[in-house]
């Protein structure tokens, strides 16, 4: 039983995500393998680079112990990444022709798909082929977006995990110990309102929603709510009205 569970788990989670990215990345590559255009290749290489960086970061997180399971798997992943890298480059230089070596080097891919593709190529006309290529380019683009999205969520989640480690869910403790934090929060809140015109509010709201306990995070996220609040306040301010005066008058009459 390890006490430092939260940090370890954060890393582990990162890691599983990475594994998944990698798999989809790989599928995307193999789907397009036979016919990369320059633009597609560029994109894939960018993703590839990102992944490599993430793996390297993770490796840095890992204990240096060579028996460490995470380290072993990460090293394997790194090798695989390198393999993909090489294969992409290779296929780019020698398009279409290398069917055999491709089947050989790839153990994960569904061969059926590639065979279907080949048949289609033989049967269909040039227009079909062009359309297909366009579709595939879109899929690849989509995938890339997905990957970076996942990565964002991923780092958010890791952030939360980290935050929660220190957060005591007690109003009293936080009121007493966080006078300074609140001051900082209020400052941030003002800043957030100054940023109200920006389109980033959606993301900020998400961050604000999840980073509980840190006033800075919350306030940053609440810019839009805050603005609505002001408007609401003004409106009800007019409607609301003379409650106290009435009461005071009534009292005076009594």
């Amino acid at each position, binding site marked *: *039983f390890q006490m430092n569970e939260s940090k370890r788990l954060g890393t582990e989670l990162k890691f599983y995500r990475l594994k998944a990215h990698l798999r989809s990345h790989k599928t995307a590559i193999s789907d397009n393998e036979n016919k990369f255009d320059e633009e597609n290749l560029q994109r894939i290489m960018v993703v590839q680079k990102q992944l490599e960086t993430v793996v390297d970061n993770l490796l840095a997180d890992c204990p240096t112990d060579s028996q460490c399971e995470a380290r072993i798997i990460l090293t394997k992943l790194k090798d695989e990444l390198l393999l993909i890298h090489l294969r992409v480059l290779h296929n780019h230089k020698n398009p279409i022709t290398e069917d055999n070596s491709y089947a050989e080097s790839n153990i994960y891919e569904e061969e059926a798909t590639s065979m279907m593709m080949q048949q289609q190529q033989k049967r269909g006309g040039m227009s079909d082929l062009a359309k297909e290529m366009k579709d595939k380019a879109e899929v690849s683009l989509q995938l890339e977006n997905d990957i970076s999205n996942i990565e964002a969520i991923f780092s958010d989640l890791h952030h939360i*995990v980290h935050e929660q480690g220190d957060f005591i869910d007690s*109003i009293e403790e936080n009121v007493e110990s966080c006078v300074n934090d609140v001051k900082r929060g209020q400052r941030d809140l003002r800043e957030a309102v100054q940023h109200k015109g920006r389109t980033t509010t959606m993301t900020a709201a998400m961050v604000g929603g999840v980073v509980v306990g840190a006033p800075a995070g919350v306030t940053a996220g609440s810019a839009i709510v805050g603005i609505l609040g002001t408007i609401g306040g003004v409106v009800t301010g007019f409607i609301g009205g003379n409650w106290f005066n009435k009461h005071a008058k009534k009292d005076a009459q009594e």
Partner: protein
Amino acid sequence: SLITLFSLFTLFNMVDVLDTVRLYIKEMVHLAGPQMKIMLMDKETTSIVSCAYGQNEMMQKEVYIFERIDNGVQREPIKYLKCLVYVRPTPDNLHLLQEELRNPRYAQYYIYFSNIVSKADLKMLAEADEQETVRDVQEFFIDSIALSSNLCSLSIPRPYEHTVMSMSIQSHRRSTEAIIALLLSLKKRPLIKYQRSSEDATKLAQKVGEVIRREAQLFEETFLDTLLLVIDRFEDPVTPLLNQWTYEAMVHELLTFKQNCVTVEGNKYVLNERDDDFYAKNICSNFGEIGANCKALITEYQQKANTHKNVESIADMKQFVEEYPQFKKMSGSVSKHVAIIGELSRLVGAHNLLEVSELEQSMVVDGDQARTLDRLKTLLAHPKTTQGDATRLIMLYALRFEGTNGADLRALVQKMRSTETTETLMALLKYAGTARRRGDLFGSANPMEITKRFIKGLKGVENVYTQHIPLLQQQLEAASRGRLVDGVWGVVNQEAIPATRIDHIIVFIVGGATFAESALVRQWNERRRSQPGLPSVTLQATHVHNTTSFIDQISAMRQ
């Protein structure tokens, strides 16, 4: 009246003070409506809210900032926030609130007082609201800290005046207000009985009766099924001096709760039954059971941790992400309880508490003086025995064998070499000695009790560390059977409620309660499930003591 009384009572049958507090706070937030909110509280209402809601939970209700109105910190204006004010209606708070309203920092104010507000005060407040930012003012009668479903505390560790053995005027007023608010929040107009031997209990009971008569309008729609029993700690000075072996009581005894927060090795942990299943299940378990249950918890956790390692497919991943928050919560709970139980167990070993506790129990329950004295001398000389435990043992000895122990006691106290201990001991005997107590604390005068003890002795004791039963048990039994003797118990308002109609007992303890008594009440209320005729019990007290704070309270009297 514009102050509408808010009733939620019909929503629940069983009296649960914590639930009541939660419902009222929920309603406060609800009344303020959507949008971002700040909550402005005073020292005491901060504790009340804090014990009823976690910060996470409040943030989900869009209350993002929590501030004290009374800590002198210059708050900066945030004009687009709604402000929820929940404070006690004290002159200081009303003054601060007027200041606030004259220069409002927030868009709108929703003001909730924890008790009755006078019309004059309200008028002053209305006059201060020049900018007309106040949207709502109500009295929500939540005026003491609900620590669990059956226990609330005023958190006044030293209610006594230094020189006299009666409560200070402030503590007295505060206690009256807390009782009135509790009655109003539960919608009860009680029959009031009090311990005649205690001046504090007498005065308090009479004052409460007086307020009920004066505020007849507020008490109009209340139920006549409750007995309010005002008792004084000095009738049972033994319970707070004993080591405890149930989880909640042990944590307080050895680590000391600050409301529901406890610090272990610099880490702060919140223990509450609402979202900590392990704690809820083990709150009354004894130390042995807690150890076993904690081990089971760890095993379960490890199994879960292992299944989470096998994430192969996207489906696995999805499942992992779905289960992850639950898993994370469990991992937090495991590390918290392991830290706390680990520390408890270290202290039990380091201070030789099993032996100390065994002596305490046999001294109080069996009362074999010669044998006790021998073991006491041995234990006092033991290197592991702390100063605090030595003091408590001597105090128990002094109380248990008062009048027959003069020379022995002097010898024991001399060994302590502390004039402070001597003085505190004198104060204790003055506060709760035989001269002051009316009840039969050690069951030595009652032949029934002696017989019971004899039979128990023959049968053998189930658990040597938990033999003692607080006096409260006897008092509750007498109250529920309508056997509170007139000579001992005074009655305030003569609205005759037949004993058969008493469905609920509120016990107010002047001078503080203990978690041992709370556990007793918990078990009592459990029994009610199978015995529907049994009245349910709520405990309210000036403080919830452990031995250290109880001795502090007595020590403060001697100055």
